[in-house]
């Protein structure tokens, strides 16, 4: 796993005399850095692409407000995942995956194929990745979220913050999720 460090702001980056400009700059910088990972996370949870796009817009606008309001800047990455996760969950009364519970393998395969746009990309979706996607679709929603956030380099403490779980529950979900994957693959 490649650990990705949480974004830290230094006092030098944050220009107190121009808070609006500083906030705009930082929001766009974070958007450029994080939107692909955030979008993948949402799509993987079964959020449709339009809802994912809207969710991301709203998430980054809220980040802007959060920064201007002097909110805690110590872990903006976990903050982004938490807000995006909750907004998407509210937008789609339930994620597709959790509604259907255990997706059939055919469904999971189709879901991956559906999100892939061009024939070349369809070709590039390797058998291995499809197998993992199918197995992941069989985990509980909490196990899947924890494993996905972990694979984005979030520490357990950050995952706990993003999903509003205790750190020990995150640890349990990671463990049970990996054990289940091991059985399935």
């Amino acid at each position: 796993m490649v650990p990705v460090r949480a974004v830290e702001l230094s006092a030098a980056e944050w220009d107190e005399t121009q808070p609006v400009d500083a906030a705009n700059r930082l929001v766009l910088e974070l958007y450029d850095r994080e939107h692909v990972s955030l979008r993948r996370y949402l799509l993987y949870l079964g959020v449709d692409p339009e809802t994912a796009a809207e969710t991301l817009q709203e998430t980054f606008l809220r980040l802007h407000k959060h920064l201007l309001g002097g909110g805690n800047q110590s872990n903006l990455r976990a903050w982004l995942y938490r807000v995006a996760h909750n907004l998407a969950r509210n937008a789609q009364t339930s994620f597709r995956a959790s509604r259907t519970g255990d997706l059939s393998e055919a469904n999971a395969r189709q879901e991956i194929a559906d999100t892939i746009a061009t024939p070349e990309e369809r070709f590039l979706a390797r058998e291995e990745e499809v197998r993992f996607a199918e197995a992941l679709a069989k985990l509980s929603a909490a196990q899947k979220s924890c494993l996905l956030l972990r694979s984005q380099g979030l520490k357990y403490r950050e995952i706990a913050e993003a999903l509003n779980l205790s750190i020990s529950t995150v640890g349990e979900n990671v463990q049970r999720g990996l054990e289940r994957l091991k059985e399935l693959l």
Partner: protein
Amino acid sequence: MNKPMHPDNSVLIRHLDGELAGEEWVRVDTHLACCPECRARQLEFRDLSSGIEAALRAVPARASAAERVQLGEKLAEAPRSASSSVIVLRRFGWGMALAAGLALAVLLAPLTSKAPRTKTVADTQRALAAVSSGININGETFIALPYSDPALPLNASRIVEMQVPVSALAEAGVAVQPSWNGNGDGTVAANVLLGIDGQPLGIDVLGAD
């Protein structure tokens, strides 16, 4: 020497994820060095983790350039006169940190009686004294505050200049100087040393010596 027990999956995974604390980490690390079975078991979890990463990366997540433009436009519409609200809300944020910190201060305060007591300035002053007498960073001395874990490394701290309510400082157990009411609104300009956890670790009131 007895062969120590094999760590269970939960421990092996937390070791893999860098989620074990010092002593436990050393114990597991030492065990792994001499136990091929556990190494193999941990390797399986590592490969599974790489597989999840690859599966996630395979999801195409290209955004249209229009989405970024749209976000930029919405940001530009944000109120231009946010400065005053920034200060007000920052003060609020500071207050929240103090409130959270007070709970800690009560825990740190030496208990002279076993009965639960309400927190007093005296308690927090004692707590402060217990934390540290001062923090020196590049020649600037900060009065220690009890909110950030003093054990956290200082190198990731940052210093932010802000307006801090004098009353909040008094509550935090800082001995308030009469000359600190310079702003006339009950606040004082100070460099605040924020710990790696984002909580105030120390304070240097500007213009006070």
